[in-house]
């Protein structure tokens, strides 16, 4: 099969799976998950074939796979849509296919397939456990299967479809379509347990917040289309003439060039999707979804889409960049990224929910990538995107596994007051859940950037090296501190969860999870280590040059001008070694002796900062006070003043006037003239009453009878006109 045909086919299996599950196999759990996992496997297979074909082509950036068809007729021309895989698309496809396939497999175990039906589980609420009697007559409470199991796979499949559409598309319009499909699925999955008010609110919050970004993104798309007449990547981003004309056209907004303005508008879409400050508020709440799975979607795939888009539009954003200093658009992007990186990292320091720590860490890591793009480090950002997707997927799935194990403990003791997600209730899980522990450790080390072995080290080091080489000192300092905090809170999490002694009975009875959940962990941990080796800088002491810097050469081909690798320097390397190892050691030292019931050791030294961080810098309160309250107030003003006062007032005036006129006619015309004169005196009463009675039969009060009358009259008039007028 030609690669182009195969690329068209990649997104289809999940879409078919969605419809099959929704329409036909809803009742059968086994059939539904077979279809779902099978579809994910098919797409994965197609993606792998494409990926390996792509890396086999020399100078792939110039000879990419692409194919397009006419889609929307616009006058005499057509808006074309199509698929394309270029070097950036190929690596994105690689990690997307792997992570999506792994989520599907993992979901089978996480949603307790094969477990009995719950005692009083209801659709819309998480499973509460089932009582079973074993052969000795003892009663046990075990995990019960998710009541809406099939529905979950249907949503996941639709989600996978959206992500694949986004990756294989060759223009920003179909990218936007995939983007919005994922927005919808994210709403559906966050609100999957719609019986919980918190989940409902989180779903609405996520949808509304990302919508703010999407409106601006749509504006950017419209502006780009009106400026260039196309939305195709190749026609804009691989075309120096178009880029040059966009860079030299000035706009009245803030002295930005057209390229910068469009780039920034599109970037606001990313702020929403990738949860950058100030639209980051939805992502932590999105943890309300079924534990690891929707969480991992919000970590490894969907939020990556935002960064992927900025990497795509990178030539546009940097069109008027001379290579020295930063343009306005780039400084804005770099500022947002760097600020988000450090801001989210500080919040992650003080969170107790195992998933929330990871959620803030995701925001922070996405900030790293955005900052890298803002300062022009194209390859470094793409590299960190891929490695982060792998190790963050691993961490989220690992945390889901931990929660699953803890739920086992909670059901064993029957004490439902213990929150299975609170890290202070854990401890000592290392021996209970060895596979989860070792894989989580690998993921955590990769996130902290543990030197030499983990993928996270190579990609994060490259960002720091780039900041150093181009002398962006503020960004370098900010990101280094953020990296230090990352290592610290990761170690805090690992120590609190897995090391030491169990702090609750529930943690003592935690249990390793089934193979469907541990297999994805093992697979992803291979990538969390191994993927770093494809991007080792050439001049790295000792290791550089042993394996060619394949990632740089390959992905660099996406741009017209291949970016040059930065000079090697010991300073950024030392920084990244110090922050990673220092943060990890500190985290271990501070948290290794925490006993049950202890307060967080950070609480005292941080003083008033601790509640500030724990409450996420009071951003939710800030928004509810300065955005939601004024909105409610304005709508109240409009309801009371405008709608009920002015508009209803006018209508009431008309009603009163009509009533008054009616009164006049009734008293001075109807009563004396019609009733008395014509009716009584002339005796018409005797004819009108039976006629009225007969006619009132036609007033059935049924809208459809009237409609039939209307249609009949219409047909009659039409026939009359046809016969006599033409």
């Amino acid at each position, binding site marked *: 099969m030609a690669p182009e045909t195969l690329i068209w086919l990649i997104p289809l299996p999940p879409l078919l799976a969605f419809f099959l599950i929704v329409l036909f196999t809803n009742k059968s759990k086994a059939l539904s998950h077979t279809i779902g996992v099978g579809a994910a496997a098919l797409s994965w297979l197609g993606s792998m074939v494409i990926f390996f074909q792509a890396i086999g082509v020399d100078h792939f950036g110039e000879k990419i796979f692409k194919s397009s068809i006419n889609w929307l*007729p616009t*006058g*005499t021309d057509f808006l074309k849509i199509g698929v394309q895989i270029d070097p950036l698309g190929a690596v994105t496809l690689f990690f997307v296919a792997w992570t999506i396939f792994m989520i599907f497999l993992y979901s089978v175990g996480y949603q307790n397939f094969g477990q009995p039906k719950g005692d009083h589980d209801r659709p819309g609420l998480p499973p509460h456990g089932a009582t079973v009697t074993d052969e000795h007559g003892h009663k046990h409470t075990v995990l019960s299967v998710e009541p809406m199991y099939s529905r979950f796979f249907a949503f996941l499949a639709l989600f996978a479809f959206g992500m694949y559409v986004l990756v294989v598309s060759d223009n920003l319009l179909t990218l936007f379509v995939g983007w919005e499909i994922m927005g919808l699925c994210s709403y559906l999955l966050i609100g999957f347990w719609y019986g919980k008010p918190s989940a409902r609110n989180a779903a609405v919050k996520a949808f509304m917040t990302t919508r703010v970004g999407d409106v601006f993104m749509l504006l950017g798309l419209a502006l780009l289309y009106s400026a260039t007449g196309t939305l195709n990547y190749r026609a804009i981003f691989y075309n120096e003439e178009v880029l040059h004309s966009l860079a030299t056209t000035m706009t009245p907004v803030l002295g930005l060039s057209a390229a910068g303005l469009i780039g920034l508008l599109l970037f606001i879409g990313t702020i929403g999707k990738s949860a950058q400050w100030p639209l980051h508020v939805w992502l932590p709440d999105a943890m309300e979804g079924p534990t690891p799975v929707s969480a991992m979607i919000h970590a490894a795939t969907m939020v990556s889409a935002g960064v992927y888009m900025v990497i795509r539009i990178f030539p546009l954003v940097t069109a008027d960049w001379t290579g020295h200093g930063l343009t306005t658009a780039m400084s804005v992007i770099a500022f947002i990224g760097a600020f988000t990186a450090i801001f989210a990292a500080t919040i992650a320091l003080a969170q107790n929910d195992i998933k929330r720590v990871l959620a803030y860490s995701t925001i922070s890591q996405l900030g790293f990538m955005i900052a890298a793009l803002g300062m022009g480090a194209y390859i470094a950002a793409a590299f960190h995107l891929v490695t982060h997707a792998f190790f963050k997927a691993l961490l989220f799935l690992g945390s889901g596994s931990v929660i699953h194990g803890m739920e086992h403990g909670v059901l064993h003791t029957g004490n439902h007051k213990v929150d299975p997600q609170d890290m202070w209730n854990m401890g000592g899980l290392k021996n209970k859940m060895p596979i989860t522990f070792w894989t989580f450790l690998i993921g955590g080390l990769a996130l902290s950037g543990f030197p030499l072995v983990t993928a996270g080290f190579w990609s994060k080091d490259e960002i720091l090296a780039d900041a150093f080489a181009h002398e962006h000192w503020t960004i370098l300092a900010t990101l280094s501190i953020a990296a230090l905090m990352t290592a610290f809170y990761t170690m805090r999490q690992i120590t609190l969860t897995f090391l030491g002694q169990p702090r609750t009975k529930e943690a003592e009875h935690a249990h390793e999870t089934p193979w469907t959940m541990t297999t994805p962990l093992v697979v992803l941990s291979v990538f969390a280590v191994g993927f770093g080796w494809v991007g080792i800088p050439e001049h790295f002491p000792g290791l550089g040059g042993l394996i060619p810097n394949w990632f740089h050469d390959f992905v660099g081909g996406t741009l017209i001008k291949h970016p040059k690798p930065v000079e090697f320097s010991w300073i950024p390397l030392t920084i990244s070694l110090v922050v990673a190892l220092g943060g990890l050691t500190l985290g271990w030292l501070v948290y290794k002796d925490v006993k049950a019931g202890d307060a967080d050791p950070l609480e005292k030294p941080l003083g008033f900062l601790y509640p500030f961080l724990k409450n996420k810098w009071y951003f939710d309160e800030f928004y509810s006070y300065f955005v939601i309250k004024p909105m409610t107030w304005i709508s109240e003003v409009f309801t009371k003043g405008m709608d009920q006062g002015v508009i209803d007032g006018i209508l009431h005036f008309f009603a009163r006037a009509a009533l008054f006129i009616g009164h006049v006619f009734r008293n001075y015309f109807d009563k004396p003239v019609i009733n008395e004169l014509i009716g009584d005196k002339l005796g018409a009463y005797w004819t009108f009453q039976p006629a009225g009675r007969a006619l*009132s039969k036609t*007033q*059935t*009060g*049924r*809208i*459809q009878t009237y*409609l*039939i009358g209307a*249609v009949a009259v219409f047909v009659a008039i039409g026939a009359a006109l046809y016969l006599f007028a033409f």
Partner: protein
Amino acid sequence: MIPLSWYLYLSAVLFAIGLYGVLARKNAIAILLGIELMLNAANINLVAFWRYGDPALMAGQVFAIIVFAVAAAEVAVGLSLVISIYRSRKTVVADELDLMKW
């Protein structure tokens, strides 16, 4: 190329189905569905005539888009009416909504 008349037949059939739905179905939502079918039948006509007439003139396409917008607004209003009727009368069967009958 498919002849123009085929599109017109399709549109006529669709319109007739929609009309039948509006007149014969009792469920208010089904009636709304019927209205949608009729609107889209009109759209097929508009687009077909545009395509077979002068494609450089965008009128047919633009009209179809206006019809979309109107249809969307109509569904929003219609469905919210249905919901509020359901709340107060616990039914969406058109025949049972006979408050206006005297």
